[in-house]
C-alpha cells in the first residue's frame, strides 16, 4: 500500500514537472537584449521590454544592463567572438561604422524583417534617424531605438536678471555671444556659457547644420577611404569663435563627453549645449525657469541652417551559429512593437528622446503635447527642418570613438593655450586620418 502511494507520488511528480516549467514560460522563445542606459533611462528600457513581454505569449525578451555604451558594445563583441552573443545589442551611434563593417557577425534589419515576414516601411521613421542607420540603398541596417539631438538650454531667470528678452531668444552665434556678454556684465550666473559633448556638438552638429563636409566620401557613407576635412575655413572660424568666447570669460569648458551635465541644472551656467535626452534631468533638478531651443548657427555662413544629426543608440541583431528562425522572428516582432505609434509616443514622452516615427510626432502634436511642454520638440524640429544633404545625413567613420577623443584632446590643448585654432585642427585632422587608415587596413585585410 505504502509502496503504491510512493509510486503514484513519483508519477505525479514526473508528470507535474514539465507542466510547472511550461507555466513558468519556457514555452516562450527567449531573446537576450543587452543595453547600456543607466538610471532613469535604463528603467524606461526595462519597462519597454516588459510592455512587449506582456503584449504577447510567444516571446520573452530578457533585457540586461551591461554598463556604459562602450561596455555594452565591447561586451557584445567579446560574446560574439566567444560564440554566444545576445540576440540584440544596443550600440551607440559612433559605433555604427564598426558594426556595419562586421559582415557575418550582424544580421541587417531589412534582411531580418524580410526573412521573418514582418513588414516595416523604412519611410515611417524620421528622416534624420533613418538616414543614420541605413545603407546607401536606403535599407535599414540597424533598428532605430533611442535618438536624441543636441540643443541649446537657456536659463530664463538669468536672462531676465541680465535684462534680456525671454521670448526673443538667441538663434545665431552672434546673438548668443551678445547675450553672454550681458549675462556676464550683470553677473546673472557664475558662467555664461558651457557645453557638453564638445566634438559631437561643436564639430559634428555644426558641420551638418552649415552643410560643411566633416570628411570626404559623404562623411564616410560612400566608403572606408574617407578623409577628415577639419582644416577647412569653417572649422577654423568656429574654433576661433569658441577660443574667443573663452578668452573673454564668456565660455567655461566643462570637460569631455557629458562631464558638464550637472552645470546647467545647478544654475552654474546660463547657456548650455546638451543632448535633448538630458531633459528629464533638467526637469527634475533645475530650480529656475528654463527652455530648450535649437542650436545656434553662423548667419554669415548659412541663412537657412540644415538639419542637425542624431546621437543616441540603435539596436543591432547579432548572428550566431545556433540561432533558430523563431528567435529571429521574436527579434523582428520586438522591433515591430517598439515602432508602433503608441509605444513610440510613450517612449518619446517618458525619455525625452525624439520619437522614431513621424506618426508618433504627429500624434503628439495633435494631442497638444508640445504646447504643454515648450521646447520638447526643439530636437525634432532641428532634425527635420531640411532635407538631409550628404553633409548632414550623419557620419560613418571607422574608429569614430577615437576620432571624437582626438578632437576633444586637441581642442583642450587649444583651450589651454598650448596651440592656436589652426594647429589644433591640423593636429586633429592628421591624427584622425591615421585612425581612419588603421580602420581601413584592419577591415580590408
Amino acid at each position: 500500500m505504502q509502496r503504491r502511494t510512493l509510486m503514484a507520488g513519483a508519477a505525479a511528480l514526473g508528470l507535474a514537472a514539465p507542466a510547472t516549467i511550461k507555466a513558468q514560460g519556457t514555452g516562450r522563445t527567449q531573446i537576450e537584449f543587452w543595453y547600456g542606459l543607466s538610471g532613469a533611462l535604463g528603467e524606461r528600457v526595462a519597462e519597454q521590454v516588459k510592455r512587449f513581454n506582456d503584449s504577447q505569449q510567444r516571446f520573452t525578451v530578457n533585457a540586461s544592463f551591461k554598463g556604459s555604451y562602450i561596455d555594452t558594445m565591447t561586451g557584445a563583441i567579446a560574446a560574439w567572438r566567444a560564440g554566444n552573443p545576445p540576440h540584440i545589442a544596443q550600440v551607440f551611434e559612433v559605433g555604427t561604422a564598426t558594426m556595419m563593417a562586421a559582415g557575418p557577425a550582424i544580421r541587417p534589419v531589412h534582411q531580418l524583417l524580410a526573412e521573418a515576414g514582418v513588414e516595416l516601411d523604412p519611410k515611417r521613421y524620421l528622416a534624420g534617424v533613418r538616414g543614420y542607420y541605413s545603407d546607401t540603398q536606403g535599407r535599414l541596417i540597424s533598428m532605430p531605438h533611442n535618438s536624441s539631438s543636441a540643443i541649446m538650454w537657456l536659463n530664463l531667470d538669468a536672462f531676465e536678471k541680465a535684462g534680456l528678452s525671454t521670448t526673443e531668444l538667441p538663434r545665431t552665434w552672434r546673438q548668443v555671444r551678445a547675450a553672454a556678454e550681458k549675462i556676464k556684465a550683470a553677473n546673472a550666473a557664475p558662467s555664461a556659457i558651457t557645453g557638453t559633448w564638445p566634438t559631437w556638438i561643436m564639430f559634428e552638429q555644426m558641420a551638418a547644420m552649415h552643410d560643411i563636409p566633416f570628411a570626404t566620401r559623404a562623411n564616410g557613407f560612400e566608403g572606408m577611404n574617407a578623409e577628415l576635412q577639419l582644416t577647412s575655413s569653417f572649422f577654423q572660424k568656429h574654433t576661433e569663435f569658441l577660443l574667443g568666447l573663452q578668452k573673454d570669460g564668456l565660455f567655461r569648458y566643462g570637460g569631455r563627453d557629458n562631464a558638464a551635465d550637472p552645470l546647467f541644472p545647478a544654475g552654474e551656467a546660463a547657456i548650455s549645449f546638451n543632448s535633448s535626452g538630458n531633459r528629464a534631468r533638467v526637469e527634475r533638478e533645475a530650480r529656475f525657469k528654463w527652455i530648450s531651443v535649437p542650436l545656434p548657427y553662423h548667419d554669415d555662413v548659412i541663412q537657412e541652417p540644415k538639419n542637425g544629426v542624431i546621437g543616441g543608440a540603435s539596436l543591432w541583431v547579432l548572428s550566431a551559429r545556433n540561432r533558430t528562425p523563431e528567435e529571429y522572428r521574436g527579434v523582428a516582432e520586438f522591433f515591430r512593437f517598439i515602432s508602433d505609434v503608441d509605444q513610440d509616443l510613450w517612449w518619446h514622452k517618458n525619455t525625452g528622446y525624439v520619437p522614431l516615427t513621424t506618426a508618433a510626432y504627429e500624434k503628439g502634436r495633435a494631442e497638444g503635447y508640445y504646447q504643454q511642454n515648450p521646447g520638447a520638440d526643439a530636437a525634432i524640429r532641428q532634425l527635420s527642418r531640411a532635407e538631409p544633404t550628404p553633409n548632414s545625413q550623419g557620419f560613418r567613420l571607422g574608429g569614430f570613438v577615437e576620432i571624437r577623443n582626438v578632437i576633444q584632446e586637441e581642442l583642450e590643448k587649444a583651450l589651454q593655450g598650448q596651440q592656436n585654432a589652426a594647429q589644433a585642427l591640423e593636429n586633429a585632422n592628421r591624427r584622425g586620418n591615421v585612425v581612419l587608415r588603421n580602420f581601413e587596413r584592419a577591415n580590408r585585410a
Partner: protein
Amino acid sequence: MDRKVVFKQRLLPYLLLAPQLLITIVFFFWPAGQAVWFAFLRQDAFGIRTTFVGFENFAELLADPLYLETIRNTAVFCIGVTAIALSVALLLAVLADRQIRGAGGYRILLIWPYAIAPAVAAVLWIFLFHPQIGLIGRALNGAGIAWDYKLNGDQAMLMVILASAWKQVSYNFIFFLAGLQSIPKSVLEAAAIDGARSVRRFWTITFPLLSPTTFFLLVVNLVYAFFDTFGVIDALTKGGPAKATETLIYRAYVDGRVNLDLGMSSAQSVVLMLVVILLTAIQFRFIERRVHY
C-alpha cells in the same frame, strides 16, 4: 638530517600541484600568451579579418610621440604616488605608534580608506575638487586661485596623484605600524639614555630597522601606481585634459577596449610586461642588497 620529503610515486606530487598550476595556466599564462600573440596581429574588432604583421604594431607604437609622452606621464605619476603614499603613511604610523588616548580609534580611521572602491573614492574627490560644484574647488576659485583640473593638465595630474596616493596610504600605514611595533624597545631606550633626541633616534635607529618594510612597500606601491590606479584615473579625468593624465595602463585600456584596436593594445601590454620584469629584476638585484635586515 635531511628533512626533504621524497614521494614514492611520480604521480602524486603532480596531482597535488595540479590545481595551482591549472589556475596559473588558465588565468595567467593563457591570457598573457594570447596578448603576446595578438601583439603581432592586425585585426578588426570582431576578429573576422586577421593578418600577421610582425613587429609593425611595436614599430608604430614607439614611433608615436604621444606614447613617449605617456611614458613620461607614467613616470611622474608613479614617483608622485609612491613618494606621497609612503611618506604620509610613515608619518602617520610614527604618530599613531605613540602612547595616546584612543589610539585604536585613530588607527581604524586611518585604515578605512583602503576599503573604499576606486570609483567611489574618485567621486568623493570630485565632490571636493570640482571647480564649480566641489567644496574645496569653489573655495580655491573664491580665494583667487584659478583651480580647474578639467582644463589644467598639471592640476589634473596633481589631483589623480593625490587621489591614488590617498587610497594607498592606509595600506602602507598598516605595514609601517606593524614594522614600528616590532622594533625592540631596548635599542631605542639605550639611545635615549645616551642622549639621542627623537629625530635622531628616528633616522639612525627606527628608519634603518624599518627598511625591509619600506622596501617591500616601495615595490608594492610602484606596482599599485602602475597597474591598479586605472579606476581612479578613469573616474576622475579619463586620461585628460589633452592626455595629461594618461598613463601606460590607461592608454592600453583606451586602445583595446574603447578604440577596439586589439593589436596595438596587446603590443602595449607586452611593453608593460617587459617593464615590470625589468623593474622587479632591478629592485631585487640591486636595491635589496642595500636593505638592512
